[in-house]
């Protein structure tokens, strides 16, 4: 298992400073949540970490290995995997084939990859969907498929971008339990989530971004009491009196 360390990560688009000086450490067996209002730069952080967008400054390390200059595919091979907020299924393929695409990374044979993929689907309780076309799934199942594909690559560090968006409450409960299970298996998990209840229940640590800048970092309890966070979410006139 591995530790993901980011330090001083920054990115500007034209004049807009999308991400400024973001530093954090995601440790094995821990869940770190990144929260913040819309447009705070959360997804951009994921894009910088995974190399989908080149960063202007800062470093990303997996254990002692610098990921600088590596392509997204090579970062995934190194063990850093992500989901997309807007899910990216291979629409024309079946659910099983989708997951096989991820499982191929760790095996030379398609037959083995199919077995591994079936196991992942089983883990997520999706076995009965295996033969369905990914494009025909409802949103909740697409979110789970997004997870399944990525898990099949057997990542060490997992970046989850709003995997609970669009899920119904019962599905949220299951997803929380599932992510906790991943943590207990020793993965380092970084979560972007709008679902505040879930964040509070899941996180070991929370990083709050506003306008691309980190404004607070700490345990869920600390964050819930932080006046800067409250004003960021609820406006500067809101009087802090505890609780989110």
């Amino acid at each position: 298992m591995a530790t993901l360390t980011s330090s001083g990560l920054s990115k500007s688009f034209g004049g807009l400073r999308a991400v400024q000086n973001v530093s954090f450490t995601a440790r094995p067996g821990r869940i770190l949540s990144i929260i913040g209002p819309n447009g705070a730069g959360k997804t951009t952080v994921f894009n910088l970490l995974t190399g989908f967008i080149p960063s202007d400054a800062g470093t990303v390390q997996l254990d002692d290995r610098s990921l600088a200059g590596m392509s997204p595919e090579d970062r995934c091979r190194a063990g850093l995997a992500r989901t997309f907020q807007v899910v990216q299924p291979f629409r024309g393929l079946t659910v099983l084939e989708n997951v096989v695409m991820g499982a191929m990374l760790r095996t030379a044979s398609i037959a083995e990859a199919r077995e591994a993929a079936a196991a992942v689907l089983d883990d997520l309780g999706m076995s009965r969907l295996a033969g369905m076309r990914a494009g025909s799934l409802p949103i909740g199942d697409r979110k789970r498929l997004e997870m399944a594909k990525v898990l099949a690559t057997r990542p060490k560090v997992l970046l989850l971008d709003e995997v609970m968006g669009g899920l119904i409450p019962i599905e949220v409960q299951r997803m929380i339990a599932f992510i906790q299970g991943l943590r207990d298996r020793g993965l380092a998990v970084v979560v972007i989530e709008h679902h505040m209840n879930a964040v509070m229940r899941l996180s070991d640590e929370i990083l709050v971004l506003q306008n691309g800048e980190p404004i607070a970092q700490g345990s869920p309890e600390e964050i819930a009491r932080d006046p800067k966070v409250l004003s960021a979410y609820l406006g500067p006139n809101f009087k802090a009196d505890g609780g989110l």
Partner: protein
Amino acid sequence: MSERSTSNPAGAAPARMPHHAWSIAAFALLVSLPLLVSDPFVLNMVMMSLLSAAAALAWNLSGGYAGQLSLGHAAFYGIGAYTSTLLFLKAGISPLLGMLVGAAISAAAAIVLGMITLRLKGAFFVMSTLAFGAVIHISAINFRELTGGSSGLAIPLQPSVLNLTFANKAVYVYLALGLMAAYYAATLLIAGSKLGYSLVAFRENQDAARALGIRTLPIRIGIFALSAAMTSLCGTLHAQYFLYIDPDSVMSLSLSLNFALMAIVGGLGTAYGPIIGAAVVTCVSLAMQIYLGNQISGLTQLAYSAIVISVLLAMPGGLGPGLRDALSRRFGWRP
């Protein structure tokens, strides 16, 4: 035993014929065809159909599985035809060797072209391959000292295996059939491998493929080169069959378009699609010839392009998968 069939959810379907049995049956039919048919007109049509099916299979590896819609593949066909022919005419080198040299040159050209153009999106890639095809075509016309220009090159009829020249035209039909069968087998092999899956992943969703650790550019260039080399071999066979080549017959845009359309009409990204496509084209032109004769040029192509448009709009996946879906919906029958 008869109860068994009722346990099938669709009811009507009898025991399924395995996929391979169909392939073998079709293959056996094709093997016997040259023996049964003596009419040179029909034999020629069968030959062209098999040869273009082979070329369409080659195109489909890159165009179908990887979604790299090249309209420059005639250039590779032409390189194959011209390389083996020129080596034979100018240096007395056997076309058996010449065809390999041609395939190597085509693969090299594809690698260079691929490195330049495979990062281009959709229509931009199509146009760049179009331009490549045109450059090769124009070069063949204009470098007259080497290529003979528009008047083309003739290969003397000196039948021997080493010369890859045969007096009996049926031999070529078997060669084309062998080539097509080999390409079909290669397609099945690749489609079921990690390489094939990776190409499909890239075609379906590039970002998702990269996020899953699939390195796409090297394999895309690789499959483009393989496809080019395979197309090139078809070009050599074309030259040996006609014993005459000129730029318009082995390098024109319409030839590139033909390879692509056969694969697309039959079923893009399926192993049997290009073969179905080639069969459809052959049947259409045969029917047009029979009903209309040769008096009005263009009618065959007119009918063909109308069919292509209808297929694309009604069954975007091609005739093969389209009919298969229709059959399984209606009768629960999956060939």
